[in-house]
């Protein structure tokens, strides 16, 4: 079992904005009931929301050795159907209000506004004994690729987070990130390990109900991606009265040095912790953190490896970098390095393909004191509002939908440019990408150019597109 809920049986584990409460004891009991409904270890899908029922299903499955794949409840139906066919899960755990969308499946159990549906798939792909959980890397482009996480991965990473953030049962984190997103999930995983109380809401930072819930339930911490911190600044966060707040964590991309500094200084002045962190779904969640007492001094750094982990940099010639301020690919080693990917049900039997070593694809440097700084990326992807979006996949999606149109996607974090040569499809391409990724259209800009720059071999010269960036 991952979590020993009975250790904290009388303590409140989950609270939602509608006043629903659940103790650790009730969580343990409900877990037993759900596990009884599921015949044996098998694959399930969870359509996640930040709601008690969603968390209950997730922890119950995991504790009972049932393997869930976490997806966003608002995932586009076509993409979901594709995933269902690719993996053929035996059950799906869905919000009650979505039951009507799955009329061909039988609902065999209902709990906390969630339903357990039995699917009608015949195939059951065998599961590797260490496989605990499947998560998407971006959750948006409809790629059937999952990260395979083991029980040891989840436990090791949660324990490490507990240690470096000094978590205990007095913590009351409020949800600000989707639970199917690895960072949001790591907050749940780590806090349930120490008997803390999770404040669960689907409301966003920009909603009054969120702050009402925050204040009433005296939230002690929250996590945010760079965009969250931009929103907070716009909300005049620094002037808000939030006496219960102790810690703010940041991950999911690099904060601008200006914002890093502002929040670090705010935290210092108000005696709070601001913790910049670094991670990836491929490492369960977290790999690095900047100790809060260094937040001002090492502004712009993502810190050092988490307890139990190690970083090193590999130069282009393959050698290990030993001098500060030299750029190389960041490599992480630790028990939280996941087993590998799955792209099809057949892959679920695969074992550990990484052996504890992850090449992150991020280019980094370290300073004289050993603090790491992310300076670039090896692969073509952007982080949009904290979600990873693979640019090559976007290109493929556009070509697939628009009759092999000449196109190229590029850009910087939170701002993606969609270059096309056909003026008549420009706006449709933009709406299509926004719809398919489920991200706000504001992140995308369609730009019409005479031709997509390519080399003699026909490879797109993305560098030459940079001159069109406006940000």
């Amino acid at each position: 079992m991952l979590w020993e809920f009975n250790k904290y049986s009388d303590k409140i584990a989950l609270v939602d904005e509608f006043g629903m409460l659940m103790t650790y004891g009730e969580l343990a009991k409900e877990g037993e009931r759900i596990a009884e409904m599921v015949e044996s270890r098998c694959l399930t899908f969870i359509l996640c929301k930040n709601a008690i029922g969603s968390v209950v299903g997730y922890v119950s499955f995991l504790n009972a050795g049932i393997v869930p794949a976490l997806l966003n409840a608002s995932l586009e139906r076509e993409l979901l159907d594709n995933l269902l066919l690719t993996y053929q899960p035996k059950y799906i755990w869905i919000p009650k209000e979505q039951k009507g969308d799955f009329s061909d499946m039988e609902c065999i159990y209902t709990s906390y506004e969630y339903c357990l549906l039995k699917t009608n798939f015949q195939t059951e792909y065998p599961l590797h004994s260490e496989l605990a959980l499947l998560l998407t890397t971006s959750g948006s482009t409809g790629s059937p690729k999952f990260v395979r996480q083991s029980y040891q991965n989840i436990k090791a990473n949660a324990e490490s987070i507990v240690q470096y953030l000094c978590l205990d049962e007095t913590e009351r984190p409020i949800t600000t990130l989707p639970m199917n997103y690895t960072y949001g999930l790591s907050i749940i995983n780590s806090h349930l390990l120490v008997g803390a109380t999770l404040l669960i809401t689907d409301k966003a930072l920009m909603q009054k109900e969120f702050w009402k819930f925050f204040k009433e339930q005296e939230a002690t911490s929250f996590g945010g991606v760079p965009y969250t911190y931009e929103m907070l600044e716009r909300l005049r966060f620094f002037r808000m009265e939030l006496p219960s707040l102790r810690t703010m964590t940041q991950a999911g991309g690099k904060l601008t040095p200006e914002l890093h500094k502002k929040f670090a200084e705010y935290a210092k002045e108000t005696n709070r912790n601001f913790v910049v962190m670094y991670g990836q779904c491929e490492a369960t969640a977290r790999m690095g953190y900047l100790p809060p007492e260094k937040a001002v001094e090492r502004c712009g750094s993502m810190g050092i490896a988490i307890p139990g982990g190690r970083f090193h940099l590999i130069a282009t010639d393959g050698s290990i970098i030993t001098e500060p301020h030299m750029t190389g690919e960041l490599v992480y080693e630790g028990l939280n390095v996941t087993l590998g990917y799955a792209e099809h049900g057949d892959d679920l039997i695969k074992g550990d393909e990484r052996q504890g070593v992850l090449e992150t694809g991020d280019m980094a440097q370290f300073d004289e004191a050993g603090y790491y700084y992310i300076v670039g990326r090896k692969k073509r992807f952007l982080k949009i509002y904290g979600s990873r979006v693979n640019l090559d996949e976007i290109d493929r999606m556009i070509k697939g939908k628009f009759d092999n149109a000449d196109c190229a996607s590029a850009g910087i974090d939170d701002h993606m440019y969609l270059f096309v040569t056909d003026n008549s499809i420009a706006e449709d391409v933009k709406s299509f990408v926004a719809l398919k990724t489920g991200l706000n259209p504001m992140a995308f800009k369609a730009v019409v150019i005479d031709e997509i720059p390519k080399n003699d071999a026909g490879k797109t010269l993305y560098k030459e597109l940079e001159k069109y960036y406006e940000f």
Partner: protein
Amino acid sequence: MTNLEKYKEAFVKGLEIGAEGVESLEYQGIPQWDSVGHMGLIAAIEDSFDIMMDTDDIIDLNSFEKGKEILSKNYGIDF
């Protein structure tokens, strides 16, 4: 331009949407008006009327109509 026209334009620019039907818009009523869109909308309103809105007003503005009410009550903008 009247204040109402300026206000409508802020919605069109801030949320990157067409002008049609803006009067009936509500937060999360369209995909564009999520928390990301809200930030763009607030920025557009603040620019249009050259004001700095308070936190309470920013998070209270959850529909086209409500926004008008807030602007006239707390920022002296008449419609």
